[in-house]
């Protein structure tokens, strides 16, 4: 699944570790989500959306 997580993180100047700490997940998990290798669970997707003040659909795109 494509997503805008890397761009949103870059806008705020956060490292993957900083974002991971805020979401209570590892740097490796952030890296995997950004690379599209892992789709987060619904609770984690909600946490991401709330942190960036956007809807899940604004961040994640399930359309090819």
């Amino acid at each position, binding site marked *: 699944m494509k997503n805008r997580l890397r761009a949103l993180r870059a806008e705020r100047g956060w490292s993957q570790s900083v974002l991971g700490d805020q979401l209570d*997940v*590892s740097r*490796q*998990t952030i890296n*995997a989500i950004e690379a599209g*290798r*892992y789709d*987060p669970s619904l609770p984690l997707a909600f946490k991401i959306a709330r942190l960036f003040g956007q809807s899940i659909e604004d961040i994640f795109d399930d359309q090819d």
Partner: protein
Amino acid sequence: MTTEQANFRFFKVFVPAMILYVATTAGIVWLSDRHALSPHVLYVLTLVPIGAIFAAFWAQWRFAMELDEFLRLIQIKGTLIGVACIMIIASGWGQLERLADVPRLPVFWLLPVFWTVQGLATTVISKREGVF
């Protein structure tokens, strides 16, 4: 909890449990080779390495629960590969024992095989997923 903390808590239980397992297994073999121990004594002594195996799996379970969802998925995939490997060896050889009269499989070795396969599978999956 951070991944590092979960790792530390895992190895803090797993390593002593495996040392206890190997030491007590070797100790029981050493004792039974030199003394005529009754089966009841051997049953009781064997409870120690069995307890160590239980502790190791409990540590594995706790470790998986303390990781975040992505790293937990990798652990579970590695464990499933380990279990699948053991089941294929045990069931496959069991069929051969039943039907083809092959020598009996020393099932004692299934646990080391499981941990080896689980560890290798988890490492390969982690590498492929970019964890390290």
